[in-house]
C-alpha cells in the first residue's frame, strides 16, 4: 500500500460544482486544523527536496482554504489556519528564492507569491469581519505589515489598488502599530535611498517572518544602492567593498559577485578591493540572483 487513510490528504480541486458535492466531502474545522498541523509537521521533517514538499503543501493548503471558504467559516480558528498557511508561503518564499537558479524555480516563486497575496487578502476580509463582533487576532498587525513589505519586490503580482488607497481604508490602530510602522519606514527608506537605515532597521527590528519575507528582495535593494553610488560617486575615489559590505549587510565575497553581475569592475590595491564610480558598464540585472539575508560582520556591534 502506498498510502493510507491516515496519511492521505485531500487534494485541491479547481472546479467544484455545487450539485456534485456532498456534506461529507467537506472537512469540518477540527479536521482542517489537524490537517494543517500534519502539513506543518511535513514541512519541517520531510526528507524530500524542498520543491516537492512545497508543491504538495501548496496544493493541499489550497484545498484546506477551499473547504473553509465553502463553509463560510470566519472565526478565530479559521483565522489561525489562514495565518499558518501564510506562514508556509512566507517560509517557502524565502527557501525557494535561496534555491532559485533557473526559470522553472522562479515561476514557482511567482506562483507562491501570487497565492500568498490571495491568502492575505482573504485573511484581511476575515479580520474585518471579526472586528464587527469586537474580536481580533493578536497577530493582525504583523500580517497586515506583510502586505506592505511585498511592495518592495518588483516582480510581485499586480495589486489592484494602490497602497495609498489601502492605508485609507485601514483602522488607525493598525496603521500605527509597531509592525506596520516598521514596514512603512523601511519602504520609505528604500524610496529615499537611505540604504544604511534600511538595513540597520531590518537587522534590529524585523520579526522572523518579516525577515523571511524581505530576504528575497534584499539583493535588488543592494543593486540599487550600487546604482546610486556608481552614478553619484567621484571617479577617483573608489568605494571600498569592506565598507559597503557593512552598510549593505552582505558578505564581502557575495558583494563582489553582486558587483560583477551588475557589470561593475572591481579594482584592487594591496589588500583592499573597491569599485570605482562612474562605470558606464553598470546595469541593474533582472531577474536578480538569490539573496541570502542579513549578514553582520563581527566588527559591528548589534
Amino acid at each position: 500500500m502506498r498510502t493510507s487513510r491516515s496519511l492521505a490528504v485531500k487534494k485541491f480541486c479547481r472546479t467544484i460544482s455545487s450539485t456534485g458535492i456532498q456534506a461529507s466531502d467537506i472537512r469540518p474545522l477540527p479536521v482542517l486544523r489537524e490537517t494543517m498541523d500534519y502539513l506543518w509537521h511535513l514541512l519541517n521533517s520531510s526528507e524530500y527536496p524542498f520543491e516537492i514538499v512545497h508543491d504538495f503543501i501548496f496544493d493541499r493548503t489550497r484545498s484546506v482554504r477551499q473547504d473553509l471558504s465553502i463553509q463560510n467559516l470566519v472565526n478565530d480558528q479559521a483565522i489561525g489556519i489562514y495565518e499558518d498557511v501564510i506562514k508556509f508561503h512566507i517560509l517557502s518564499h524565502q527557501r525557494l528564492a535561496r534555491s532559485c537558479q533557473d526559470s522553472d524555480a522562479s515561476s514557482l516563486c511567482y506562483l507562491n507569491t501570487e497565492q500568498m497575496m490571495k491568502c492575505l487578502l482573504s485573511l484581511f476580509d476575515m479580520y474585518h469581519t471579526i472586528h464587527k463582533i469586537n474580536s481580533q487576532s493578536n497577530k493582525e498587525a504583523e500580517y497586515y505589515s506583510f502586505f506592505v513589505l511585498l511592495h518592495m519586490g518588483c516582480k510581485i503580482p499586480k495589486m489592484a489598488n494602490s497602497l495609498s488607497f489601502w492605508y485609507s481604508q485601514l483602522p488607525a490602530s493598525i496603521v500605527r502599530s509597531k509592525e506596520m510602522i516598521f514596514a512603512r519606514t523601511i519602504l520609505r527608506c528604500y524610496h529615499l535611498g537611505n540604504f544604511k537605515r534600511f538595513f540597520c532597521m531590518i537587522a534590529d527590528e524585523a520579526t522572523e517572518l518579516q525577515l523571511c519575507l524581505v530576504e528575497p528582495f534584499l539583493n535588488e535593494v543592494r543593486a540599487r544602492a550600487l546604482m546610486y553610488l556608481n552614478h553619484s560617486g567621484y571617479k577617483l575615489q573608489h568605494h571600498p567593498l569592506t565598507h559597503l559590505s557593512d552598510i549593505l549587510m552582505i558578505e564581502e565575497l557575495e558583494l563582489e559577485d553582486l558587483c560583477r553581475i551588475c557589470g561593475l569592475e572591481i579594482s584592487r590595491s594591496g589588500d583592499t578591493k573597491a569599485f570605482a564610480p562612474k562605470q558606464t558598464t553598470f546595469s541593474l540585472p533582472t531577474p536578480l540572483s538569490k539573496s541570502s539575508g542579513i549578514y553582520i560582520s563581527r566588527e559591528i556591534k548589534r
Partner: protein
Amino acid sequence: MEAMHMVALEIRLLAEKADRELVMSGKNPDKLQAAGSFLMKVFGALAVKGPKRVGALYVTCQLFKIYFRLGTVNLCRSVIRSIETARNFDFEDFPVKDKVTYMYYTGRLEVFNENFLVADQKLTYALMHCNPQSESNLRKILKFLIPVKLSIGVLPRRTLLEKYNLLEYADIVTSLRRGDLRLLKQALDRHEDQLLKCGVYLVLEKLELQVYRRLVKKIHIIQREKEPSKAHQIKLEVLVKTLQWLGITMDVDEVECIMACLIYKNLIKGYFAHKSKVLVLSKQDPFPKLNGKPV
C-alpha cells in the same frame, strides 16, 4: 433629464440612510451597494446615441460617490472607460458641473495611483471650472491638488491655505521653504490619521527629498557668503551637524546614501567623494528646478 437626476440622487441618499439604519440594528448594510448596481444599469441605458447621453456623466458622478463611500473604487474603472473611450460621448457636451465633479473624482484616483502629472491636469481643470462661489467644493479640490502641486515643486501661499482652511498643509509648506526636516516629520506625525484617510500621506512623505535638497541649498548659500571660492564643496560632517541641530541623528554613511540618491534623481547636480567625505556641487546650476516634473 431633471427627473432622472432627481431619481439618481435620491436613490443614493436614501440608500445611504438605509445603510445607516441597518448598521444601527446590527444588520448587514447592503443598500448602497444595491443602489450602485441599479445606477450602473441606468448608466447603460443612457450610454446610447441620442440626446439622452448627456445625462450619463451625472449618473457617473453618483456612482463615483457611492464607490468612494463603499471603498470599492476599483469599480470606477469600467465607468471611466465607457466615458473616455466610447464614441457616443463628446466630453465637451456634458454640463460643466458634471465635468468638474468627474475631474475631481478621477483626479483623486490618479493621486491614489501616484500619477501626479495627470492628477495635476484633472484637479486643476476641476479648480478652474468650479463655481467660484462654492467654497466648500473649492476646498475639496484644493485638499488633493495641493499635495500634488507640492510634489512637482509648486508651493501655495499661506493666504490660500488660510482662506480655505487647509492649515494642515501649512507646516509642510514651511518645511519645504526652509529645508526644515524636523518640521516636516512633526507635521506628518500630527496630521497622520487625517492624511492617511485622504490618501495623501505617502505623497507628502516623499517630499522629504525636496526638504533635504533645500537644506543643502541653504548651507551652500551660507558658505558662499563666508568663502565663495570653496562654497561648492560641502563636507558631509557639516550636514550631519546641521541635522543634529534639527534633532535628527544621522551618521555620515546615511547622509552619503541620501546625497547619492539626490544626485541620481537630479535634485542636486554634482558628486560626492567617498574618501574625503565631501559633497561637491556643480558650479553651474547645482540645484536644478523641478520644472513641473515629479521627483
